[in-house]
């Protein structure tokens, strides 16, 4: 996808409120946007460093809980006599906190698992997510456990003059999510198209060779983990302020799976892949709704995952790219043949 196409896509999304006036429509887009941000962040680890993080929802959940707690205020009794009290903070500030804390956790996981690869990395990340979920479930004094944190202040009110009606609030939320998504995309793009991204790809493609030319692979794995976790934390923060209720179910493994499906179907290791996957799997439940029960919807997800691995192992974006390149070279070839009467100036490889 060219940069022009990317901006056209964003412009089209930004123009939607002009033509659409349905609350539910924007609700679907907001949720889709939040999960697409999550998928983009996962892609940085899974797609570019080649390390499958199946605990990605931990960063999302940490972001959600941080945003909820900072904006609601909390107290932790540290000793018998000393209690740490945090007064409620504005929503924009709590969102920054969620990005920061999730990023720190990413750093921690990156450091922790820097020596493990492949299946071991997967399991460390799953374990981390489970531990965090169990903490959220059991530390009732802080998190309310299964009773959930309620009435989280919305981000939308943080903007003055925009609280007239439910549709307006949805639209403001929509723009906030769109803004964060675009910003995240640009950050990831910047990383990928620099020496940082090249080092990550080198780790994925050939770790020994990467080391031998002087790439400190650990450093870049940790860096990818930090960026990835921070962006996932932002998605979690947005989720908390939008849905306004957070319970330990935000750590459900199925959310990680949703993000993984988005990345893999769209095309891991491509910038546009998670966005394409995010749009498809963000909208799919809405098409399935009314036709099926949730169980069948999930079964369809599972089946699609298997089918994608079988038939589109690289994902949709690389497949389309390949098709497009083949189509263009065929067209060029026809032109070239016509011009040079059978002699193709371009060298063709078998």
């Amino acid at each position, binding site marked *: 996808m060219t940069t022009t196409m990317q901006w056209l896509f964003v412009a089209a999304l930004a123009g939607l409120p002009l033509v659409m006036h349905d609350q539910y429509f924007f609700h679907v887009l907001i949720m889709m946007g939040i999960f697409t941000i999550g998928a983009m962040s996962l892609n940085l680890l899974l797609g570019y460093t080649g390390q499958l993080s199946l605990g990605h929802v931990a960063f999302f959940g940490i972001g959600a809980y941080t945003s909820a707690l900072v904006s609601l205020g909390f107290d932790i009794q540290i000793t018998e006599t000393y209690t740490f009290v945090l007064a409620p903070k504005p929503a924009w500030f709590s969102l920054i906190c969620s990005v920061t804390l999730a990023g720190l956790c990413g750093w921690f996981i990156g450091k922790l698992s820097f020596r493990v690869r492949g299946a071991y990395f997967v399991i460390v990340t799953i374990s981390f997510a489970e531990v965090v979920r169990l903490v959220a479930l059991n530390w009732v004094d802080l998190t309310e456990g299964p009773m959930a944190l309620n009435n989280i202040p919305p981000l939308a009110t943080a903007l003055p003059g925009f609280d007239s009606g439910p549709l307006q609030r949805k639209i403001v939320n929509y723009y906030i999510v769109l803004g964060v998504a675009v910003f995240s995309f640009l*950050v990831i793009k*910047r*990383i990928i198209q*620099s*020496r*940082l991204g*090249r*080092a990550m*790809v*080198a780790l994925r*493609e*050939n770790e*020994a*060779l*990467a*080391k*031998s*030319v*002087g*790439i*400190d*692979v650990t450093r870049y794995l940790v*860096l990818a983990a930090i960026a990835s976790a921070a962006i996932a934390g932002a998605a979690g923060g947005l989720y908390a302020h939008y849905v306004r209720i957070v319970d330990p179910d935000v750590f459900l493994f199925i959310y990680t799976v949703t993000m993984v499906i988005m990345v893999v179907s769209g095309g891991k290791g491509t910038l546009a892949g998670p966005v394409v996957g995010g749009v498809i799997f963000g909208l799919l439940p809405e098409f399935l709704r009314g036709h099926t029960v949730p169980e069948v919807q999930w079964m369809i997800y599972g089946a699609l995952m298997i089918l994608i691995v079988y038939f589109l192992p690289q994902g949709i974006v690389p497949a389309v790219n390949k098709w497009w390149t083949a189509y263009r070279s065929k067209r060029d070839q026809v032109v070239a043949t016509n011009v040079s009467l059978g002699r193709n100036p371009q060298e063709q*490889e078998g």
Partner: protein
Amino acid sequence: MNTHSMAGSPVLAVNNLAVHFGGLVAISDASFAVDEGEIVSLIGPNGAGKTTAFNVISGFLRATQGEIVYRGQRLNGLRPHEIAEAGLVRTFQKTSIFGNNTVFENVLIGLHRVSAASTWETLLALPKVRRRERQLRDEVREILDFVGLGHRGEELAGSLAYGEQRLLEIAVALAAKPSLLLLDEPACGMNPTEALSFRKLLSSISERRITILLVEHNMRMVMGVSDRVVVLNHGKIIANGPPAEIQKNPEVVRAYLGHGAQKHA
């Protein structure tokens, strides 16, 4: 500055190196040195410990005993990327490239070490960083032309012919700006024509003031390009000297014949 002809003080010193895998002794008490600007070949029958020595020098394996000193810096305990940072860059016995990337990108990745910019500078894409990126692209072209892959830049590395992949490995290693290049059987699998032009490439690398330590089975190449040959057998160094001397050394002949002379091919 030392040049090829006036080899001087040792830049790499391997002192009393020993490597054990459990009870297995891969290298026992090996010492040798490589002088500035030299092309030194490390030869020996299969299983003599050549690749092990490479792995230890480049930090992929730990020495059980002994030390490795490069330009006064002790390399023991350093990690592979730190050793590359010190100027020692290796290639691998089995072809090792970034197969899913283009040839151009392969070399660009190799330039990581010299593309130095801090993470923040890179994230903010300061003008300085952008300028450097443009320079890097020129450097990639220069390196690809040097090894003779200039016309292959846009192709996927994995789709290159075998001999070209071996050249690409050299290009990637050169991109890391080594002062000492460790080549592990670089000509293995090349046809005679390719091997011949590869010999020329080695000489022109040497002319760039890059010291070369070579592990190679192709004896014609070893004897043709080396300033000095070090012979390993059963983890011990049995000979060390100029090619002409080595060829006449009875112990070397015995070591090779004992293990089958077919390796001379």
